[in-house]
């Protein structure tokens, strides 16, 4: 049984893919083209025809917005985590801003910043800020008191204990990563002339159905790849943490 399981892990996804291919091969429904057509279009569109014009701009916006959010969130989160009064004062504001559904800010961002790249970057950064901020605050608050006391006894600054909050900060960064992808797509769907989100919506509007599917597929692969990349970075950066807790 234990030996069967790893095989299943590979076989079931393959079987599902095969099922999709078989089911769609004979399909003449306009909206669900055969899988082979989608893959062919994917090959024509994304390898590497539109990489420079759509994928790279999308990824640049995503990276810029995400990094700005992480830096800001950690910078704001550390003082808030250390200071109880500041934290309580900021709580209602943070809770309210966080509760605004991010797409609702899109019209506002267009009015205030315009439709350019900076609007998209700002929007991604604003949305990604909250999970990292909340986790930074909680992470700093949750630092083991023994650690803090030890630092004090040895006359080390309290700042030396801050890395203990890193695992939780990374948990927030992981949540923010998927939000970043979502905001990238939304902002490109509403006001853009390039990007993956733009391409997918444009394909749908011009009834280029295999193109639309290929874009959706690309977004899926992108989301998955970003997750893998993040896990690798996290493993690297937090290696000391896992060793300490092994």
């Amino acid at each position: 049984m234990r030996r069967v399981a790893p095989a299943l892990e590979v076989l079931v996804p393959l079987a599902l893919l095969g099922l999709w291919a078989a089911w769609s091969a004979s399909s003449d429904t306009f909206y669900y083209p055969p899988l082979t057509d989608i893959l062919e279009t994917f090959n024509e569109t994304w390898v590497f025809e539109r990489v420079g014009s759509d994928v790279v701009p999308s990824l640049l916006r995503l990276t810029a917005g995400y990094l700005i959010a992480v830096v800001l969130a950690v910078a704001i989160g550390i003082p808030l985590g250390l200071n109880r009064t500041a934290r309580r004062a900021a709580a209602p504001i943070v809770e309210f801003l966080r509760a605004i559904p991010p797409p609702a800010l899109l019209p506002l961002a267009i009015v205030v910043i315009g439709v350019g790249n900076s609007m998209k970057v700002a929007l991604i950064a604003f949305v990604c800020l909250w999970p990292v901020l909340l986790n930074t605050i909680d992470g700093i608050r949750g630092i083991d008191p023994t650690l803090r006391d030890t630092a004090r006894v040895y006359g080390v600054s309290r700042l030396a204990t801050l890395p203990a909050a890193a695992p939780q900060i990374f948990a927030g960064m992981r949540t923010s990563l998927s939000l970043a992808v979502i905001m990238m797509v939304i902002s490109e769907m509403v006001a853009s002339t390039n990007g993956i989100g733009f391409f997918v919506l444009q394909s749908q509007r011009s009834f280029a159905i295999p193109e639309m599917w290929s874009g959706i597929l690309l977004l899926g692969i992108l989301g998955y790849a970003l997750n893998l990349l993040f896990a690798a970075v996290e493993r690297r950066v937090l290696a000391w943490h896992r060793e300490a807790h092994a």
Partner: protein
Amino acid sequence: MIAPAAAVLAVLALWELAVRTGLLNERHVPAMTDTVAELASLLGDDDFWVAVGHTLEGWALGLGIAAALAIPLGILIGSSPTAYRSVRFVIEFLRPIPSVALVPLAVLIYGVGLESKVFLAAFASFWPLLVQTLYGVRDVDPVATDTARSFGLGRLERLYRIKLPSAIPYIATGLRISSAVALILAVTAEIVIGSAGLGREINIARQGGAIELMYALIITTGLVGYGLNALTTRAERRVLHWHPSQRQVAA
């Protein structure tokens, strides 16, 4: 209690001041008092409440459908190690797909009405719930299961008495996450594809240059999100009052 209230007032006052002194362009950001007045006048407007209702309708149906599918499926898959292993990769691949990538597909299949909104909200909130349920069911204390088994409890009874109670905190957290996600997707659908609701009203206000109205509506969506979050947290506390995570005194 004083510090939070003071901070909120300070932010509001700063907003007002920044606009009145011309630090913020009034064409981009209306004064706080004007926005609040607009919001107050909205409260007496029937159309406004209809829009709120449309948004909540999309949220409730989406979340409801997601819960009806994800929780039973999670329990089923989580109960069998073989099933879990064979679908793990599929879930890990489908989960990070940004739900908004499906907007065009939803429009094609369901049009621009309520169905699209519900489909998107349900798809997006399905995954956090499924993953939480899976974790919950798999996290059952093996001693409890073994004890139940040696007392001769059958499969169904073990599910009902052991697995479900220990999975419920996970499911509750999943519901809280999914509730926020469902609201986001409902508003996204309203903004991007123009289904009826607060999102569409915001877009119309922007296109018509009614800046105060736009800000008032955006604040409304924030209040709706805040309210739903408070509601789910409260419900969680009530249902889980017996669970250790809720027993501690608020810090």
